[in-house]
């Protein structure tokens, strides 16, 4: 067990951490009568002086991860119950480290070292037969002094029934046991199991098993194989030739490793460190699994971009490529599609994206709307399309008719138009005025007044320099499109 600090907690004030119920509290709060698992409202009433923080399990998991990794370095298979609590099967490790106490001491020592690195938190370590007994052994241990339980049934028999609450989540059952005069796990274990199963069903049976020391096995998490490859260079890579060679070699090494397990990546992370030790990282994606050439190209493009832009001052000292989104599936090729062209195009577009940034390569998708600006939902190429804000199949009465303007500014541009008797006569284009030869409109566009939009009129203006879509609102004219 590992207590997790909250960096955002006030340093001197008592703190209560809650979601629906109390999940943690400082000593002052617990002294006021608050207990873990107590409903939040009740705890706040008992400790009104405490600062209340909302529990953030994601952040807790992130902070707990170094602890899990440290334990996995010592004992390879770990079951993470939640942030702050892990179970570890030690049968094999006990022989390796020379006994349960030696193992527990070693784990405690490593955890102390972690505390020394200001990770925060103090470890409680318990060793017993089964996760349930080990959890309560840890709960009754002292910081830095692991508790190794040799008589698990005897240890359990002295525990209060409240120990079952976490495992069974059956408060009513525990209250019923107390009402029947059963207050410890030992007393519960002495009751006939058949009778408990008949009277209390599955929960009663589980409670009796736990009280009797009959526990489940630890279910450790799988350790994912590490397919990342990296290379360090004593002489920093400064020339593009050297970078290209390293990129190709590293990409091939990673894919060779993946082929053994029949996998191919759809996403790779490329990390380079400069002589200053500053890392640069970029993630590349591909709809098709990366081939050696495709991956080599991308690594090369990325490194070249960094080298040419001075992003890795002094040259590259370390390179790392790690795969993600692995798949063992090919892609169904369309009968009438030119898939080789598609793959080459994607490579070219990815290269353009490197030069221009992700917002430089875009794809549009039709969506509903009355103005040309509204009718295209833009998304970055290579990323999932954004959701339509407006339904494209809705009727959209009053929409600007086709043909659509081929040039549409992202925002309306101010346009100087001269009017005579409500009719447009001249348009200012740059430094010159062009007479309006003919026009159509106005077409009314009713704005959404509830969000502050004004009504507008649309005109199609034809001049000797082309045709324009013009919007007039609030007495001012704007350019909405050019029929180029």
């Amino acid at each position, binding site marked *: 067990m590992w207590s997790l600090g909250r960096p955002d907690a006030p340093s001197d004030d008592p703190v209560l951490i809650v979601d629906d119920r109390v999940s943690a509290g400082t000593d002052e709060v617990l002294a006021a009568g608050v207990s873990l698992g107590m409903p939040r409202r009740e705890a706040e009433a008992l400790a009104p002086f405490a600062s209340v923080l909302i529990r953030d399990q994601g952040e807790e998991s992130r902070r707990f991860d170094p602890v899990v990794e440290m334990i996995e370095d010592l004992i390879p298979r770990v079951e993470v119950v939640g942030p702050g609590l892990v179970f570890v099967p030690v049968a094999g490790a006990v022989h390796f480290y020379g006994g349960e106490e030696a193992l527990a001491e070693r784990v405690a020592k490593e955890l102390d070292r972690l505390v020394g690195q200001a990770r925060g938190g103090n470890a409680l370590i318990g060793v017993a037969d089964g996760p349930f007994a080990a959890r309560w052994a840890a709960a009754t241990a002292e910081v830095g002094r692991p508790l190794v339980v040799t008589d698990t049934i005897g240890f359990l028999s002295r525990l209060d029934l409240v120990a079952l609450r976490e495992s069974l989540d059956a408060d009513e059952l525990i209250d019923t046991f107390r009402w029947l005069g059963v207050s410890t796990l030992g007393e519960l274990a002495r009751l006939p199991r058949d009778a408990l199963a008949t009277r209390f069903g599955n929960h009663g049976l589980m409670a009796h098993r736990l009280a009797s020391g009959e526990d489940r096995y630890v279910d450790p998490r799988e350790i994912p194989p590490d397919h990342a490859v990296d290379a360090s260079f004593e002489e920093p890579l400064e020339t593009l030739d050297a970078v290209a060679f390293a990129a190709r070699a590293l990409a091939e090494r990673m894919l060779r490793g993946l082929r053994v397990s029949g996998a191919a990546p759809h996403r790779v992370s490329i990390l380079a460190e400069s002589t200053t030790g500053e890392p640069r990282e970029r993630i590349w994606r591909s709809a098709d699994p990366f081939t050696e050439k495709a991956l080599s190209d991308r690594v090369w493009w990325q490194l070249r971009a960094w080298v040419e832009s001075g992003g890795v001052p002094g040259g590259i000292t370390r390179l790392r490529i790690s795969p993600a989104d692995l798949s063992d599936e090919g892609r169904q090729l369309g009968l009438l599609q030119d898939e080789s062209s598609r793959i080459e195009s994607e490579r070219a577009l990815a290269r353009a994206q490197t030069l221009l940034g992700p917002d430089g390569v875009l794809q549009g*998708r039709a969506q509903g709307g009355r103005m040309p600006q509204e009718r295209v939902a833009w998304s970055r190429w290579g990323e999932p399309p954004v959701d339509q804000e407006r339904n494209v199949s809705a009727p959209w009465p009053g929409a600007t008719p086709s043909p659509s303007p081929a040039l*549409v*500014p992202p925002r309306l541009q101010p346009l100087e138009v001269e009017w005579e008797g409500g009719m447009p006569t001249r348009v200012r284009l740059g430094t010159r005025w062009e007479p309006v030869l*003919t*026009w159509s409109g106005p077409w009314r566009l009713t704005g959404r007044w509830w969000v502050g939009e004004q009504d507008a009129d649309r005109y199609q203006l034809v001049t000797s320099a082309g045709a324009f879509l013009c919007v007039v609102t609030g007495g001012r004219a704007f350019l909405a499109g050019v*029929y*180029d």
Partner: protein
Amino acid sequence: MGIEDVVLDPPLLDLENRDEGFLRLRPGWITELVGVPGTGLTRLGLRLLADLSQVSPVVALDTRCWISPQAAWETGVNPENLVIVRCDEPGVWPKVAAALLEGVRALYAEVPAGIKDQDLRRLAALARARKVAVAMRPMGMGLPAGVSHLRLRALGVTWEGADQGHGRLGKRRLVLEASGKGASGMTRRFEVEDEGSDVVRVVSDVVVGETRRAVG
């Protein structure tokens, strides 16, 4: 001056097919679209991508960041296969264009003013080597001699449908002049009708005397 002043010549043998051929991009060829803004060349350039977009991705290289894919979709470009690349920095433009020519099969590229002739010649060589079908729309001066195989110059455009407040813009008639190697060294003039759909009709062989501005 408008295309009302254009004199229609008697149609030549197989003229229609040949003129329609001017409106198709060919692998390894560069088609140059020349004309002042407003003559409808953006729409025409996007329309040239339509055929190839049915089988593979096509790209519009947009230097003004104003190109609307909706106009391209209306001309028959497959929405799934149209990618817009926005590049408003002339310094990067040659690199981006070269990167695209390395992989795509069809490209409509606006060429910003100030691009060196040397860069444009290199890009043309790359397009030939990679068999990319390219339409280029110079924003400043035209392309240097020898770069394009076919030069389509907009001579005039008229709109039908709008009339002093009534109706709406409907049909556009665009007169083009084709020249260069792709036109067998002859200067041909023809008229294109565009009604906002993906059907573009080549109407007739026409002759005009000189380059003019677009008119309404």
